[in-house]
C-alpha cells in the first residue's frame, strides 16, 4: 500500500515530460538527458541585490560563499577585438543588412554597476534564505533564476533611455531594470490585472516610494499585442518576455500547468500569441531602438521560429527592417556561470545543467533599422 499510485494516470507534469521527450530529444540530441535531469531536480536561484537596502546584505551573502556573477565575469572576458571577429564569423545575421554593428555592440556593453546578482558556486546546492526587510521595510534581495537576468543585461539599457517591459509580471526583470537606475522612463505592462498587482507589490517591497513616481514609471494592464496601435515608434528598448510553456514549471508542478487537458487550446495558441507580442514590441520600439525577445522554454517553435516569423512579418506588413544583434559576447562573459546551448543559429539559450541549474532561458535581440 506504500506504493499505490494515488495520482491520476496522466497528470499534466507527465504529459509535459512526454511532450518534451518527444521534441527535445530531437532538438537537443545527446544533450537532452543532461537537461532533463536538471529540469527535474531542484533549480538554483540568484539573489538580485537591492541597491536601495543598506543592511550589509552583500557582505553577508559573500560570507556564505556567494559571488556576484555579473562583476565576476570581468576577469574572464576576452579582448574585444578577438571576440568581434569570432562573433561575426559565427553568426549569420537574419537581416538583409549585415552591418558591422557587432563590434560597436561589444564595446558598448557596460553593465550598470548598480546591478548585482549573487549565486552560490557551481555544484553548490546551498539555498538562499528568504530576504528580510531592513529598517525601512525594504527587502535585501529578490530571488530569481539568475539566468533571467541575462535578457535584462542583453537589453543594454543606456542612460536616458525609455524602456517598455511588455509582459512584466511578476516583475523580476522589471525590478532588475529599475535597479539599474539609468532608465529615464520605464513603462511596465502585463495583461493580467492580478499579476500586475503582484508586480506593484514587488516594486514597493524593494524601492523607496520617492523613486516610484509617475514621471519615471507607468504600470498598465493592457493586452500587449495591441501595443503597436497605442504607442508605436517610441521606446529605445523593449523587453518582450512572453508567456510560454515554462518548461521547468510544467514538469514539476501540476497546479496551474499549461499541459493540463483543459488548456490544450491555450498551449496551441502560444506561438501565435508570442509572435503578436513580439511584433507589437517591434512596433513600439523607435527606429534604431532594440527589442529583446525572451522565453523560459527550450522549444524551437516558441523561440527561433517566432523570431524568424516576426522578422519576416515586420518587413512585409509594417515595412520595418530588423537586424539580429549577436549575443555571443554575453555568453562568452558568463560561460563560467551558465551552460549555453551550442550552435543556435538565432539567439542564445541557457540550458539547465545539474551543476549550474539555471534556465532554460532563450533570448534573441533585434535592432530596428527603420
Amino acid at each position, binding site marked *: 500500500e*506504500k*506504493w499505490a499510485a494515488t495520482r491520476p494516470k496522466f497528470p499534466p507534469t507527465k504529459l509535459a515530460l512526454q511532450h518534451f521527450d518527444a521534441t527535445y530529444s530531437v532538438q537537443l540530441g545527446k544533450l537532452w*538527458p543532461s537537461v*532533463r*535531469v536538471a529540469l527535474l*531536480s531542484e533549480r538554483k536561484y540568484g539573489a538580485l541585490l537591492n541597491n536601495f537596502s543598506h543592511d550589509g546584505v552583500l557582505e553577508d551573502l559573500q560570507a556564505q560563499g556567494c559571488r556576484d556573477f555579473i562583476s565576476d565575469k570581468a576577469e574572464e572576458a576576452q579582448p574585444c577585438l578577438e571576440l568581434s571577429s569570432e562573433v561575426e564569423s559565427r553568426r549569420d545575421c537574419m537581416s538583409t543588412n549585415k552591418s558591422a554593428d557587432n563590434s560597436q555592440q561589444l564595446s558598448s556593453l557596460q553593465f550598470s554597476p548598480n546591478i548585482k546578482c549573487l549565486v552560490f558556486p557551481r*555544484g553548490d*546546492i546551498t539555498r538562499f534564505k528568504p530576504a528580510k526587510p531592513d529598517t525601512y521595510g525594504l527587502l535585501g534581495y529578490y530571488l530569481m533564476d539568475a539566468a533571467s537576468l541575462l535578457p535584462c543585461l542583453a537589453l543594454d539599457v543606456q542612460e536616458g533611455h525609455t524602456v517598455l517591459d511588455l509582459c512584466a509580471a511578476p516583475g523580476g526583470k522589471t525590478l532588475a531594470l529599475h535597479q539599474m537606475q539609468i532608465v529615464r522612463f520605464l513603462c511596465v505592462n502585463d495583461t493580467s490585472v492580478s499579476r500586475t498587482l503582484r508586480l506593484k507589490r514587488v516594486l514597493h517591497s524593494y524601492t523607496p516610494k520617492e523613486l516610484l513616481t509617475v514621471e519615471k514609471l507607468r504600470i498598465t494592464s493592457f493586452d500587449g499585442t495591441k501595443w503597436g496601435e497605442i504607442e508605436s515608434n517610441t521606446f529605445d528598448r523593449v523587453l518582450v518576455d512572453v508567456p510560454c510553456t515554462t518548461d521547468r514549471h510544467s514538469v514539476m508542478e501540476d497546479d496551474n500547468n499549461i499541459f493540463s487537458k483543459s488548456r490544450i487550446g491555450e498551449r496551441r495558441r502560444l506561438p501565435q500569441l508570442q509572435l503578436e507580442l513580439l511584433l507589437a514590441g517591434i512596433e513600439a520600439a523607435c527606429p534604431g531602438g532594440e527589442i529583446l525577445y525572451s522565453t523560459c522554454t527550450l522549444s524551437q517553435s516558441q523561440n527561433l521560429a517566432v523570431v524568424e516569423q516576426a522578422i519576416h512579418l515586420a518587413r512585409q506588413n509594417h515595412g520595418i527592417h530588423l537586424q539580429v544583434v549577436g549575443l555571443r559576447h554575453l555568453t562568452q562573459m558568463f560561460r563560467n556561470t551558465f551552460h549555453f546551448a551550442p550552435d543556435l543559429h538565432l539567439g542564445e539559450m541557457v540550458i539547465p545543467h545539474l*551543476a549550474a541549474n539555471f534556465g532554460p532561458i532563450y533570448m534573441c535581440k533585434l535592432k530596428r533599422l527603420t
Partner: protein
Amino acid sequence: TVQSLDRDPEHAHLSEKPASELSLSSLTDMGFTATQAEQLYEAVSSIRGRAAKHALSTLTVLFVLGLNPTSMMKVLEKCPELYTIKETQLQERINNLRKLGLVEGSLHRMVAHYPQILTLPVKTIKKGVTFFREKCLFTVQQVTNILRDSPAVMMEDHDQLEYKFQYVYFRMGVKQAEMVKCKLFRFTLDEVRYRHIFLERRGLYETPDKKGQTHIINPKLENILNANQETFLTYVARATAEEYEVFKKLVARELLQQEVQPGRIVAD
C-alpha cells in the same frame, strides 16, 4: 593436530575444559604459528572474566568448519565476540545455517567473510528467513542465496528491508530472481535509489506498467548496481561525475524532505 581434530567427532569434549587450558603450546599444537599463538592468547586474555571461557571451543568449531589458522585469525579479529559464545550455541547456529541450504564450501566462505553471522541467535535467522519468504515471496533457494551472498542482511531492520524490496519491485519493476542474481541486498537503499532516480530523470529508466511494459528498454539491474561509479556513469547513465555528485546531494535533500512530508512518495 588439526587433522586429528578435524576427523575426530569426539573432540567436542575439549571445550568442556576451562579457558585456563588455552595455553600458547595448545595453540601451536593446533597449528598456529608462534606469533599467531601469541596474538590470539593476548586477544583472549584481554577479554576479561568469564566471557572468554569459550575461546577454546570456538577455535575448535571453526577448525571443524574448515578455516585454516590464518583465516581464523582474521575472523577472530573481525569478530572477537565469537570467543564468548557457548559451544552448543555455536554448533546450533551452524547446524541451522546448514539446514538452510548452506553447504560446506559456502558456509565456510560465509563465516570467513562475515563471522558476525554466528553471533545471531537461531531465532533471528529464522525470522529473517520467514520475512524473505512471506513478505517478499522469495523461494527457498532464493533465500539461501540471499543469505549466502549478503549474510549481513540478517542484521537489518525488516521494515527497511521491506521498503528496499518494494522500491525495487514496484518502482523499478524488477522481479525476485533478478534481485537475487545481482545481490541486491548488498547495496544500501540509497545506493539503489540514487542510481535509479538518476537514470529515471535522465529518461533512461521507466517503471513498467501493469503488464510489465515500457516505452524504452530499461538497463538491467545487474548493470546498474554491479558496476563501479565510473563504469556506471560511462556506460549506463552516460553522464559526468560532476553531474552525479551534485545529483546525489540534491536527491539526499529531497528524500530527507519527503520523510518530513511522506505523502509525496508515490510510484510514478
